[in-house]
């Protein structure tokens, strides 16, 4: 186990390094950073001075060596937009994103298990058809549209909730629901399908022949057995949420998290902040992947960690 985690951490470090190298190359190929970051009115002297200040006058391999050195010490330089260390900005915004993702995905997990399980009890029944249709609807609605509709209905028309911003629990409701709907739909479909599969297995007959109630069979036997596939799909949703959903949802609702900050940093040509954000997300994805593998092994002893 320990050996596995160490090996995965090493592999993960390579992945993070690969991602940072890619970001480095892309941000320097995508255009002249100096032109992006300085106003149009800057003089040639100002440009040269700025270029020297951030080290862009050096040959590319020296730039990369310095960059790699900075990455290792988690120093991504100062954000040009905020005029303070980029990592500081990331660490300040990260908890907001974590709160949004935890609320949204947590809610989706908690709701999808009973919904999928009930649907699976009678495949083709009324509850099942309703759940499946709603799930398809949930999957079909893009989040940017859903978010705007939610603002229109609940904030503008009904005036129940604030349109956007951050601070009170009420501000969290709409973004969390918007973020949760797609994962909720996918989770529910997955739980339903896996439950139907599981309920048809022989060990369920054994459990019934033992005299166990259906409720206990669901709770103790089948639920545990769908946990491994459920875990992998929720890990995947978590990664998607961190690296995609939050960008859209935070932008729509003005939620000051990492996703919104990424959009703003890109718009402002804030090279160093973009690098810090991409590095942090890549790091989180690697850690989530390792955690999922370890938890799967704890649930299913047949899984070989190799």
């Amino acid at each position: 186990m320990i050996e596995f985690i160490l090996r995965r951490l090493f592999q993960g470090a390579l992945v993070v390094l690969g991602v940072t190298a890619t970001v480095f190359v892309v941000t320097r190929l995508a255009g002249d950073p100096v032109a992006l970051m300085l106003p149009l009115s800057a003089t040639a002297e100002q440009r040269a001075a700025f270029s020297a200040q951030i080290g862009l006058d050096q040959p590319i391999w020296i730039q990369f060596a310095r960059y790699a050195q900075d990455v290792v010490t988690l120093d991504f330089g100062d954000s040009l937009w905020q005029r303070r260390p980029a990592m500081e900005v990331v660490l300040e915004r990260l908890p907001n994103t974590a709160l949004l993702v935890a609320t949204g995905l947590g809610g989706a997990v908690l709701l999808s298990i009973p919904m999928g399980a009930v649907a699976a009890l009678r495949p083709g029944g009324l509850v099942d058809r309703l759940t499946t249709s709603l799930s398809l609807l949930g999957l079909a609605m893009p989040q940017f549209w859903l978010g705007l509709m939610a603002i229109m209905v609940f904030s503008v028309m009904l005036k129940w909730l604030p349109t956007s911003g951050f601070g009170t629990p009420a501000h969290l409701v709409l973004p969390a629901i918007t973020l949760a709907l797609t994962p909720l739909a996918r989770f529910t479909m997955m739980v339903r399908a896996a439950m139907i599969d599981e309920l048809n297995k022989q060990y369920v007959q054994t459990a019934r022949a033992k005299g166990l109630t259906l409720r206990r069979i669901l709770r103790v036997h089948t639920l545990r057995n769908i946990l491994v596939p459920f875990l992998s799909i929720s890990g995947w949703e978590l990664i998607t949420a961190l690296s995609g959903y939050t960008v859209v949802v935070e932008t729509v609702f003005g939620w000051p998290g990492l996703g919104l900050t990424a959009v703003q940093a890109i718009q402002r040509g804030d090279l160093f902040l973009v690098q810090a954000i991409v590095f942090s997300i890549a790091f989180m994805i690697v850690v989530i992947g390792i955690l999922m593998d370890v938890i799967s092994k704890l649930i299913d002893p047949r899984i070989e960690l190799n």
Partner: protein
Amino acid sequence: MTETLLEIDDLHVAFDTRAGVVQAVRGVSLTVGRGETLGLVGESGSGKSVTAQAMMGLIDVPGRISGGTVRWCGTPLVGEGVRRAPRNIWGREITMIFQNPMTSLNPLMTIGAQLQEAVRLHLGLRGAAARTRAADLLNAVGISGAARRLDQYPHEFSGGMRQRVMIAMAIASEPRLLIADEPTTALDVTIQAQILELLAELQSQLGLSIILITHDLGIVAGLCHRVAVMYAGQIVETGAVDTMFEQPAHPYTQGLIRSTPLLDACDDRLVAIDGTPPGLLIPPAGCAFQPRCPVATAPCGVPQVLTPTGTGAVACCRAGIDAWKVGAA
């Protein structure tokens, strides 16, 4: 006869399929007495497993009990008028083991957890007491190192060992009847013998009644007191084991016995009963075996009723004729 425990009366089980209603069990009546071993014999699709599932209340959509009743010591369990089966009979008084021990246990729960589940539910034991009882049960079915084995998972057990665990689970509640649905079909021959020996041993120790479902006549001869032969969802012959092997009355039973390979007759070709059983979407009106029967005559077109003979009963109007002797007809 000894006290009757289980009584099945004119049981019908149907499955609603896309193609129509399949009548898997068509009027089966059986009784099992205390301490008795009943063999339920028949080929695949003859309805023996479905009968067993009906006895345990395990028939699920698309299947349904379409007629008849199953009674336990006089209390109806399934059938007309039974909304909810009385608790504490299935799983406690009647338990069941299945054909494939490889898939019969939950792969993600330890053997101990699965055993203790039954112990807790039926004996009301908790904690250390439940664990001790679970270890005793493993010992009783011949698994050594029980304390260590309790914390292992099914994949760490061989097929024969898993079937022993299944048996341990099935006797956890000190039941009076054990239904064994082809308990050795998925196992090697040597393991088969061990499992059957274990069942016989437990029966004499615990005074258990057993319904043994199988298609292996050798097993029946070794373990059972009485046999019921099923064909196309009906019982075609019942009787004491000895009589039935010596003087089978029904042409189908005769055919089954004749087609059993014998070690001392290895130079002969294995004989078979030509043809296949009828489909049960539209079951035949008369004798279901008629198309394959060498001695069938015109009266075989009418429904056959189980008629008592000396030691059992047979449903055949040509019963008693040595059907497979050349020129018997």
